[in-house]
Each structure stands twice: as structure tokens, then as C-alpha cells.
């Protein structure tokens, strides 16, 4: 456990763990630096802080693509990444300064449920 439930980020992580106890990893990440504000992993193989750093670049690249497409009025709601056995979800906060990064096993957690859980917790970050 790498979070304090005194902070909004820590409470968000705790709330998501409560809704999805079988999750693989979860982190609240500062979108500018890529550093985790709070994180938790149930898998020794997955360090959510490292994964968060990589995923910050994914978010930035997508924002660059939107600029290239002149979609300035558009806003990325979330990014859903399907892997062989896992689903990774990135849910951006309304002001874009933070995002929640969640990893679940595809067999255990439906993509729509995982997405809805993040949607219900992201407001705590604002």
C-alpha cells in the first residue's frame, strides 16, 4: 500500500479497492510529472508507479494527436487498453491535471463495470 487516506488521491484509491477488490493495480497519477500520488498493487509483478510513468506518455501522445487533428474543443474522457489477459484503464480528471490508472484481469472484471467504477470515483479528485 502506498497511499494515505487523508488525501483525496488516497481516498480515491481506497474507494476503488472497495468496489473492485480483485483489481491488479490502481494509482492516482499527476498527469504533468507522471508521478503517483497514491497507488496500490495486488500483484508483485506490476509496479503501478512505473506503469503510471509510461501511461503518462500515452496520455500526452493522445493529446498531441488531438492537437494535430485540431480537436481543441474535444476532451479525452478515458483511455481503455485491452491486453491479452488484462485491461488497463486511464480515467482523466475533469481539469486534466490527474488521472486514475487501473489494471484488472479481463476474466474477472468486465470493461464496462471497471469504467463505471472509475467514473464514479474521479469526481473525488477535483
Amino acid at each position: 500500500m502506498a497511499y494515505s487516506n487523508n488525501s483525496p488521491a488516497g481516498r480515491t484509491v481506497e474507494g476503488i479497492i472497495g468496489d473492485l477488490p480483485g483489481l491488479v493495480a490502481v494509482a492516482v497519477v499527476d498527469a504533468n510529472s507522471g508521478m503517483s500520488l497514491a497507488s496500490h498493487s495486488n500483484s508483485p509483478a506490476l509496479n503501478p508507479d512505473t506503469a503510471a510513468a509510461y501511461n503518462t506518455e500515452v496520455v500526452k501522445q493522445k493529446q498531441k494527436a488531438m492537437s494535430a487533428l485540431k480537436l481543441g474543443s474535444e476532451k479525452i474522457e478515458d483511455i481503455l487498453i485491452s491486453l491479452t489477459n488484462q485491461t488497463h484503464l486511464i480515467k482523466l480528471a475533469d481539469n486534466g491535471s490527474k488521472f486514475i490508472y487501473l489494471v484488472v484481469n479481463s476474466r474477472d472484471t468486465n470493461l464496462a463495470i471497471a469504467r463505471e467504477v472509475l467514473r464514479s470515483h474521479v469526481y473525488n479528485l477535483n
Partner: protein
Amino acid sequence: MTGASSDSSLPPKRPHAAHRLVPLPLASAATSQPEKVIQLIKAELPGLRVVAAIDVASGKCLASYCRPRAPAAEWVAEHHATTVRQQQLALQAWPGRPEQLTDMLIPMRRHLHLLRVARKGEWFVYLAVKADELSLALAREVLRMAMKRAGC
């Protein structure tokens, strides 16, 4: 679809030229799959904005189709290729069970962007549709089925 030989006699097209399919440089069995996928998706979704098959390593379009007034796929191909490369690098960096990137869905308020990687991970398809014309699940299914039917 426009072939490579017929295009060579034409003047270069502007990025906003309507209904263009960028042909593959080589007509080999390996490069015919991207064109086939684009054709299948175009047939299934006549109202789509942009669809492109993009090489992961180079970021170049292998084949693409743009609706009139839609931004050219070539403009964002490199950005999306970087996104896929970044994700593949992240997966290599993680120990444990090997995972392979299947697809990335980026829903926005008015548009849905989808990326689906071919089986060997060398190229991917980028699909952009309007959110009020197609649901995310349906767009994902059309993309998945088209790639399956094309054998990739």
C-alpha cells in the same frame, strides 16, 4: 479503391482530398491485409470519418480512407504509432506473464478513436467515428470483425 499504378499519373493530392485510399507501396501478400481491412470497415461503416492502417515502427500509413472534410490520417499517424510503441515498451518493461496489446479505445465527447493492433504487432488500424453515430462497443466490434475477416 485506387491502385498504385493509377495514382502515379495523377498530381499529388491535398491532405483534405475526399475519399482517398492511400495505396501500399508494394503489392505483396503481407501488405494486402491493411487494404483489405480498410475496405471491409468502409463497407460496414459508410459514415466513418477516418480509418487508416499504420505501420508501428515508422508511423507511416499503409492504407487509409478519409471522409470529405475529415482530417487526413497521415497527420496523426505518427502520434498514434508513438502511442502504440509507448504501450508496447511499457509491456516489455513489466516482468511476469507476457501481455500483448490488443486494442486501445479513446472515447471523447463527440468522437470515438479506436486503435487495434494486428496479430504480430507490426501495424494497427486507427478508426475515428462520431460518437452520436456509433456506439463504442459497436465500433470496437466492427473493427475486431474486419481484422478477423482479413486474417490479421
